[in-house]
């Protein structure tokens, strides 16, 4: 077994440490694939991301092109998923709809931002929520009391009411959907971050920073925030799922993107009217799309969380 005189305490780590950047960036994938649940979720989510990114190459139709001669058709060679009441191709509308959710954020008719509407909503919620949670948790005292009571009040307002008010009042547009998602999501994130902050606040390294006379801002954003990363990422994933859910619901209530945008929720709402008339496809496909994407995101998040906590 050779000579181990060189073997010392440092060496245990030595081997593992110098990992290449490649293997470092592959680590999350290794984690995903070690859980069957997460793998399935990942596959579903990837499917939607891919079809929405490559939407223009995956269908010859535009999502708003109307074929008057072929309304409310079932799946056929020309229209793989059928058409809606105006003869628009459902597959095209579906994948362009996914684009709005996951890939682009139509701020106004002229301005499109990268990153889907759902992602922007979650990002805004994260920004507002984690700032509030950090301040509330770290500062404590009356600031905490006020912020928390306000959030309590916010949380006890029925979500649907908030949606109705916000979007009915502000009108239907992607920006308003983002605002609605952010307002509904922020209190939950704030509570999560506050909880994490309260825990991290008791750690000795925070004490060490305080004894160096560091400012509150430094402690909150440099010492505490980076350590809330893990739980926040998992939570954000679930929230993206929820944001997709919310977008669908808003669209269904007629509060989503204005027509003729290919909005999944409003596609269902429109298609619903023709179900009992014997044309279920226009309502079915977008329902399947939303359900699968939301379930996929949740599978991914659940699988990851389980994998991270399994062997503790």
């Amino acid at each position: 077994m050779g000579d181990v005189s060189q073997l010392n305490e440092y060496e245990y780590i030595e081997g593992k440490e110098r990992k290449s950047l490649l293997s470092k960036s592959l680590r999350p994938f290794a984690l995903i694939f070690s859980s069957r649940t997460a793998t399935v979720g990942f596959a579903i989510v990837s499917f939607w991301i891919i079809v929405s990114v490559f939407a223009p190459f995956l269908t010859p139709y535009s999502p708003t092109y109307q074929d008057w001669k072929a309304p409310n058709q079932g799946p056929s060679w020309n229209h793989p998923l059928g058409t809606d009441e105006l003869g628009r191709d459902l597959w095209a509308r579906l994948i362009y709809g996914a684009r709005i959710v996951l890939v682009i954020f139509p701020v106004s008719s002229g301005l499109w931002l990268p990153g889907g509407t759902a992602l922007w909503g979650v990002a805004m919620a994260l920004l507002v929520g984690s700032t509030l949670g950090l301040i509330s948790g770290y500062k404590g005292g009356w600031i905490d009391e006020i912020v928390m009571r306000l959030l309590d009040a916010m949380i006890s307002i029925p979500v649907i009411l908030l949606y109705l008010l916000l979007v009915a009042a502000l009108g239907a547009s992607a920006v308003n959907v983002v605002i609605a998602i952010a307002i509904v999501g922020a209190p939950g994130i704030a509570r999560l971050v506050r909880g994490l902050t309260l825990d991290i606040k008791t750690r000795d390294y925070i004490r060490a920073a305080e004894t160096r006379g560091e400012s509150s801002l430094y402690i909150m954003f440099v010492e505490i925030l980076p350590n809330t990363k893990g739980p926040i990422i998992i939570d954000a994933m679930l929230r993206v799922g929820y944001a997709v859910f919310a977008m669908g619901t808003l669209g269904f209530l007629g509060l989503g993107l204005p027509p003729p945008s290919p909005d999944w929720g409003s596609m269902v709402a429109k298609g619903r009217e023709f179900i009992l008339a014997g044309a279920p496809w226009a309502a079915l496909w977008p329902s399947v799309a939303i359900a699968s994407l939301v379930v996929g995101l949740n599978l991914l998040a659940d699988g990851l969380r389980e994998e991270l906590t399994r062997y503790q």
Partner: protein
Amino acid sequence: MNIKNSKVLQVENLSVSYKTRKGWIQAVQNVSFDLSYGETLGIVGESGCGKSTVAFAIVNFLGPNGKVTSGSIKFEGKELVGLSRRELNRLRGNRISMVYQDPMAALNPILRIGDQLMEVLTYHRNFSKREAYEHCIDMLKRVHMPDPEAVMKRYPHQLSGGQQQRVVIAMAMLNNPALLIMDEPTTALDVTVEAAVLDLVEELKSEFGTSIIFITHNLGVVARVSDSICVMYAGEIVERGHVGQIFENPAHPYTRGLLRCVPLLGTSKSSTVLRPIRGRVPPPERRLPSMCIFADRCGHRENQCVDKKPNLREIDPGHEVRCFKGERFLYISLRDRRSAQKVRRIGSSTCAEKEKPLLDIRKLRVYYTQKMRIGVKHIVRAVDNVSVQVNPGCTLGIVGESGCGKSTLLKAIIGLEKVRDGKIFFQDKELDTLVVHRPLDIIKEIQMVFQNPDSTLNPAYPVGKQIERPLKRFKTVPRKRVREEALRLLRAVRLGQDYYHRYPRQLSGGEKQRVGIARALASRPSLILCDEPVSALDVSVQAAVLNLLMEIQNKFGTTFVFIAHDLSVVRYISDYVAVMYLGQIMEAGPTQRIYEPPYHPYTEALLSAVPIPDPDISQRRIRLEGNVPSAMNPPSGCRFHTRCPRRHLLPDGGKICQEKAPEEHVIDKNHTIYCHLPIETLLELDPVVEMKTS
């Protein structure tokens, strides 16, 4: 069970594995031992060595991820491995019972104590409710639980930690088991409570004749309760023998190393140097089956240690060791080595007597309010009228049980807690503001080393960055030289340059603590406050950190305020000691004087409670009654009067203690005692700790 066997338990070649993400990992290998009726076996070892795994393997409760991979466990002649659930249930709680570390977590929060106790009897012995109730009351009385009837009706959270542990022990003893397994039963408790629980264990042992497996990391505790001892290291038993054999003539280098790491109550830094064991316990995946498990940390390693694995073999009747060279160590007494250590001292003391104090605390009061609910606040008098001084280059040790206010005192000095009344002078300047309002040149002079190695460093940043932050903030060195200085500091705490890029999670507890010290040193402070810096570390690592602190003091003349609950550690490192109880100082003075009469009655009780890992030392038995009162509503007069065992020496049972706070008695040379008992009486008391004369 007619097979009359002289052994309660026989464990043979037990191996246990756990499933992890990396696959199955062996936590315990080839463990063999047996236990006679009425015997107490101590299993001792550092964290991660597999002690608890052995205990849970015996009761067959390894969880979904663990399993016994080989070996046998025979209880009263009957094989336990592979037993059905029904058969196991008949044994558990009946013939074999268990007590574990955290009694609060071990009790069901929503069931009354009575229900939890009685069900043991109703299920195993078909007792009627009435019978069970009476039996439980009886058992609670036997574990010296005050007011057992009331306790039966309470919920766990309504009891103190010591009381909860008594309940758990009573629960375990209800069916008069043949085997009682105790897994770190006193680790979460204060010394005085711990001493009382250990007394109880001894009492139950003699009364019931139960065989006990006592698992602990504390060598002192194991020395006090055990008949024989197994020393475990990295999942294996490395040495086994009678308690006398292990402590008098330890034959395995690891056992010897452990014993040399622990400061004994009678040792101070001027008389001894602690010898830490280098390296750390190898993680399970690093344990090579073909070589001595301790080889990479052993100072006596030879080629054969690496080439093959030593077996556990008997080198003396009843004394087994897993080392090729066991016999050679056998008769080199550790005691001789201890005295030989006197020769090698770390420099000379930097503590000079007559200088002006660096830190002068006068009548300090720190109160804080605890909000119970809206509108109702309680004032906690965490520090109440404390005066103490530290000279430059000296170490002031502060000891006391949890809740005595020692941490709050440190927080007040460093400016994390508001001072209610009194003054703190540092370098003749008054510190009267919170740290955020202090000028940088004061802040950099006082730094702190923290208790918990796992939380002392921010897990989000590499080590280097964390040392550089104070360097930049206090501009200790010009910006260009920051990195260089950080590397120098790492070297100063005996860590290599390559630690610069590592993240805290890649470091062991001791290494993290070193980085914490380096960070504190970065601003070149003249005062470092140490908040129990070694209490969360394994003994072998503890010694290294203590040595490092002393080295730093010698090199830079740094002043320390060192708080700890371990009296041996405090004695070892301090020049002066203050003993605190419920926010007040009971006794303060030069270290040597604190540990010998005249004592304050509280100091006396503390010294009596400390478990000492040396069978040659005897302690007089003084036990405190009751619990530490709440600091929200401290007792009148002398705060210690409710528990004082010496109060009766005063006329009319110490009525004065209840009415009046004691004046300070200056005995001599800074040695002060706050007690109503006259010095003459205190002087008459015998020393608590004595060397047995052989």
